[in-house]
């Protein structure tokens, strides 16, 4: 839609003289006739509205899908779900182009060529389940069930798969979180038992009023938000941060600071954009903490940074601060400056000292405020743990943690769901293994390859990026009762993930999945791909199972709100093609395994227990909301403080409950799918703040947060009342019992055990902070970072409406002309989409691009649209077209995550551009796995640029 002056002038001159159009009599003022209006009302009335959620994306917004004759015709946000409050993003609104995509997997297939060749043959579900059940049974007999990995990639609807895998006997069930951003979540987990600290800007919130009634509250209290490496306008997992951030700015005068080497969309709307060097987020936070500690003065209103009352709620304050301050006396070898000082941070981050101290001062003095960090900062750096720990501490000591308008750890306050359905109880089943001639019997969960292996035992979310190592070398348990037990990985079941393409560097995954043993068989004997979409990992599978799309199955969503909310993801339409729901696949496999003689599979735990997926979902809801009655205003003043709440909002409100004083539980009527359907798909329980504090006294309530002491813990391995406590304590106990040198990850940073409190180490491939990498700076002058393109994500680039969008400098209309089959919307008729073959003109369709600073581009002799090659010191290369702008710190290059070199035809248009789109993953150092949890250091790399 461009201005076209010339043609307009041609026509306006032609009609000159008819100066006042609306008096010329030529205008037709018309309204719909009554008959036409009636027809319209009838048409609108034939839609059936289904409440579901958008599992097309990790934000899982509540949606209304309008269905006509079994076809999804309209998609809007569900107005009763507070995370999106009726809104719906571009991706959500484009759902029809995924659901009705020609690129979907339509029927089961088995491999007929070599792995990687992508040659498959259509088979029946019977044959597919025969192959799957038969091979799993064989592997279990020969190697033990622990030789099987169930990787549920996508977080949603994993419970059916976890249940069958745990029942089968393997503890290796994992999901997307393992390769998302674990270092970013580490600080909140250690200190609070939480995960994601977000600003208190979700509206509306349901709040108990002084008159005892519940009311939806709108409006904002937040005065300052600092987003470090967090770009909620693009990576929209915490979706309310879109309208909440701009809403707080416009309606409450909230200042927004975005810290990011690139001008992200969020940065473009911020009051201040600070662009540090990559991988220095923790440096900035450490300098902020030091500044606040050194300059705090409770008597000076302009220096009263620290809320000293917070000490009452913190265990280990002094130990943490002593360990932190101990670094001040040391000089950093990279610059000879005192750690965490203003000058030190300025030297490392490339920001000015004043920018750093101003930020610290503003954060200290402005209340309520929230300091937020994201996957693009600590999440993807080798040392991101240090950053997320300091960030958590900064929110707490300034009194912003769980304050109205402050920073909420959303993991701690979201609804509890799942209950017994995911089958984790099967991990308690006793199993026997013979180790060095000795029979050992212990709980099956002790066979876990990460938690009891010698590499990354604190990998709470598993270390998916380390799987290729296990595929190649097998597993040896180093800790726990099965210490010394060795087993190979023989089956890799991947469901709605794309680990081959995104789980570290694809080269190592391809190598591991095609490696053969001495007899010429694949080391990993069974590779299975289960998904709605046909992605790169499928090319390395022996068996492909088509899963129902998110609109064709049922489950629950509850993505990171400020208080407990859960909503039904209802089945909107029946599964298309030959696709099956996770629930059906679980029961089919369970029956097959049982038929093949596996007595670990009990019919009463599967098909006899769950006749429908609604039964399964109801069991998941049986524990909801499952959170304590804490905070101010107390959610339910009529129930004892601290008691766990279970049941529907209306039964809790109307006192239709049983109070169990022994278990400290208030149990109302169970929440069910049927209840949700009658309530716009959603259940919402009341909001409260300062949930760590007694509602009527200034002391800890000892119910919140989710740590050993139920207080905020700044120490992670300590003794209290003769008991060892803290998040790292159990790992250290295992290490001590084993008496070895400690896990592989810790050894990389010179540790043998997990630290008791504050720790610091440097990131990799950063010549500005780690002396080891200084030598690469000249030849490889650019730091490489990556960022999410929400619309494009990893596996949804076959959706053409999303190709018509551009995002920052990493998703731009720079395509060569191409022809592709695409779904095209149909204006009238039964279907929503038909498949057409369409040619897209050059530069009309977005593809992954290489974003760099405009001056850097000029110096390198490249301009917008030029094809270049990026090369790392490890020799890895990728190609793409340049997008040069002023919105990038010099010396930085940014790529989209999973936006290039899409080598599977199932990506449709994105596959057509694979020769000239950059793959960030191809440049990742596969050996740079962050030491605490074995997470890929996606954003630690250097590159050189060469025009090709």
């Amino acid at each position: 839609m461009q201005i076209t002056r010339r043609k307009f002038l041609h026509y306006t001159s032609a009609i000159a003289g008819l100066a006042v159009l609306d008096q010329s009599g030529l205008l037709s003022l018309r309204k719909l006739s009554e008959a036409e209006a009636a027809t319209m009302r009838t048409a609108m009335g034939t839609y059936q509205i289904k409440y579901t959620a958008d599992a097309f994306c990790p934000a899982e917004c509540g949606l209304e899908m309008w269905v006509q004759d079994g076809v999804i015709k309209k998609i809007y946000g569900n107005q009763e779900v507070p995370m999106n409050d009726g809104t719906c993003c571009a991706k959500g609104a484009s759902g029809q182009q995924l659901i009705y995509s020609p690129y979907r997997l339509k029927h089961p297939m088995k491999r007929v060529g070599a792995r990687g060749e992508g040659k498959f043959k259509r088979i029946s579900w019977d044959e597919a389940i025969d192959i799957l059940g038969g091979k799993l049974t064989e592997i279990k007999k020969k190697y033990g069930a622990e030789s099987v990995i169930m990787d549920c990639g996508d977080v949603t609807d994993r419970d059916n798969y976890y249940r069958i895998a745990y029942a089968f006997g393997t503890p290796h069930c994992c999901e997307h979180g393992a390769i998302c951003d674990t270092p970013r979540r580490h600080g909140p987990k250690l200190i609070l038992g939480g995960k994601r600290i977000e600003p208190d800007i979700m509206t509306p919130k349901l709040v108990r009023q002084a008159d005892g009634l519940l009311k939806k509250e709108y409006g904002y209290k937040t005065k300052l938000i600092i987003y470090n490496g967090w770009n909620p306008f693009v990576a929209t997992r915490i979706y309310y941060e879109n309208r909440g951030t701009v809403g707080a700015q416009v309606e409450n005068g909230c200042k927004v600071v975005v810290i990011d080497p690139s001008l992200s969309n969020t940065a473009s709307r911020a009051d201040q954009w600070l662009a540090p060097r990559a991988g220095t987020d923790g440096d900035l936070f450490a300098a902020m903490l030091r500044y606040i500690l050194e300059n705090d003065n409770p008597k000076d209103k302009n220096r009263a940074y620290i809320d000293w009352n917070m000490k009452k709620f913190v265990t280990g304050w002094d130990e943490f601060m002593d360990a932190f301050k101990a670094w001040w006396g040391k000089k950093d070898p990279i610059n000879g400056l005192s750690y965490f000082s203003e000058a030190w941070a300025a030297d490392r981050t490339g920001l000015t000292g004043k920018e750093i101290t101003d930020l610290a001062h503003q954060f200290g003095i402005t209340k309520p405020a929230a300091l937020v960090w994201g996957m693009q900062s600590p999440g993807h750096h080798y040392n991101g743990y240090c950053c997320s720990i300091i960030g958590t501490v900064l929110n707490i000591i300034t009194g912003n943690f769980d304050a109205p308008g402050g920073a909420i750890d959303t993991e701690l306050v979201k609804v509890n769901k799942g209950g017994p359905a995911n089958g984790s109880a099967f991990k308690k089943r006793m199993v026997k293994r013979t180790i060095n001639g000795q029979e050992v019997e212990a709980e099956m969960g002790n066979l876990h390859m990460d938690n009891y292996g010698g590499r990354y035992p604190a990998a709470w979310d598993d270390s998916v990026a380390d799987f290729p190592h296990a595929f190649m070398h097998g597993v040896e348990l180093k800790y726990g009762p099965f210490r010394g037990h060795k087993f190979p990985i023989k089956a890799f079941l991947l469901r709605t993930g794309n680990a081959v393409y995104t789980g570290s560097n694809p080269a190592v995954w391809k190598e591991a999945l095609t490696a053969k043993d001495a007899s010429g068989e694949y080391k990993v004997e069974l590779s299975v791909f289960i998904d709605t979409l046909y992605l790169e990992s499928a090319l390395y599978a022996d068996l492909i199972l088509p899963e129902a799309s998110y609109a064709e199955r049922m489950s629950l969503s509850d993505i990171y709100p400020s208080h407990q909310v859960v909503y039904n993801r209802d089945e909107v339409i029946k599964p298309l093609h030959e696709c099956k729901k996770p629930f059906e696949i679980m029961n089919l496999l369970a029956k097959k395994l049982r038929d093949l003689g596996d007595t670990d599979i009990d019919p009463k735990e599967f098909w006899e227990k769950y006749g429908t997926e609604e039964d399964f979902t109801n069991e998941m809801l049986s524990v909801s909301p499952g959170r304590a009655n804490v905070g101010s205003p107390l959610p339910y003043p009529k129930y004892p403080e601290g008691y766990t709440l279970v049941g529907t909002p209306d039964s809790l409100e109307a006192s239709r409950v049983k109070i169990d004083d022994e278990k400290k539980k208030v149990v109302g009527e169970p929440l069910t799918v049927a209840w949700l359907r009658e309530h716009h798909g959603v259940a919402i329980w009341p909001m409260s703040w300062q949930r760590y504090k007694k509602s009527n006294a200034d002391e800890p309530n000892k119910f919140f947060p989710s740590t050993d002491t139920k207080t905020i813990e700044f120490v992670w391995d300590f003794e209290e009342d003769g008991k060892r406590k803290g998040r790292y304590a159990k790992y250290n106990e295992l290490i001590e019992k084993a008496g070895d040198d400690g896990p592989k990850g810790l050894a990389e940073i010179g540790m043998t055990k997990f630290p008791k409190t504050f720790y610091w180490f440097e990131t990799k491939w950063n010549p500005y902070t780690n002396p080891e990498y200084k030598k690469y700076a000249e030849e490889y002058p650019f730091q490489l970072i990556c960022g999410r393109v929400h619309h494009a994500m990893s596996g949804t680039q076959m959706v053409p409406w999303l190709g018509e969008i551009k995002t920052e400098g990493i998703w731009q209309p720079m395509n060569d002309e191409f022809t592709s089959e695409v779904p095209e919307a149909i204006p009238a008729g039964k279907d929503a989409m038909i498949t057409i073959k369409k040619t897209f003109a050059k530069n009309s369709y977005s593809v992954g691009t290489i974003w760099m600073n405009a001056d850097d581009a000029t110096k390198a002799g490249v301009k917008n649209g030029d094809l270049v090659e990026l090369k790392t010191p490890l020799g890895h290369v990728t190609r793409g077209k340049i997008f040069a702008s002023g919105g990038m710190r010099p010396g930085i290059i940014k790529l989209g995550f999973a936006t290039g070199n899409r080598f599977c035809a199932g990506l449709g248009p994105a596959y057509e551009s694979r020769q000239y789109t950059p793959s960030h993953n191809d440049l990742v150092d596969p050996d740079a796995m962050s030491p605490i949890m074995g997470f890929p250091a996606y954003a630690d790399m250097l590159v050189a640029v060469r025009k090709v």
Partner: protein
Amino acid sequence: MEEEKIMPKKYALLVDLRKCVGCTSCQVSCKMENAVPLSSYRSKVDIADTGEYPKAKRLFFPKICNHCDEPPCVEPCPVKGATFKRGDGVVVVDQNKCIGCGRCVNSCPYGARYMHPNISVVNDPAKYAETVPEVRGKKKGELHVVDKCDYCLHRLDAGIEDPACVRNCVGRARFFGDLNDPKSEISQLMAANKTSTWEPEFGTKPAVYFIVPDQDVFSVASGPING
């Protein structure tokens, strides 16, 4: 056709660019709602990167038909009633009358109209062959009707005063309503804030309003967009 005696409503759209997060939901929600074909748009967000580091900025400009009070697209139309402005302010195309000559597309300086490749003309162009050379010698199936934003007329006419782009707007930046009702949200926002329109110098009296924190957005939107 029924002539309006009174104008009970005057629909308009206000976009608060302070709240636009650049997500393009309006663009895609429109495509979803109205089955807009690929490569064509009733509603489109233009995004421009301008300025030098570190003063760079990115401007989002959601474009849509201006529903001008003096729409330049109406006069050039050779078929009476094929394109017109309703009494409630909505500029619409009657696709049963449109013969696909394309004059209105060319006469709109904002590029708000396009020829719909998937909807053929139903009004026989032969009747207009003499006066409209653009359709001379062409058959119904060869010609395609014009399409444009109509504020989701099918929703409006069913009593849903909430176009899809407004309904789904992620930043809550879009406000649609009746300017003749002083209590409507849009009227109150218009009264409380300075608003602008896009390129009013064309003299068409655009009726889509913007709250604009950065006036550069208009000049950028009118020029060639980078990328």
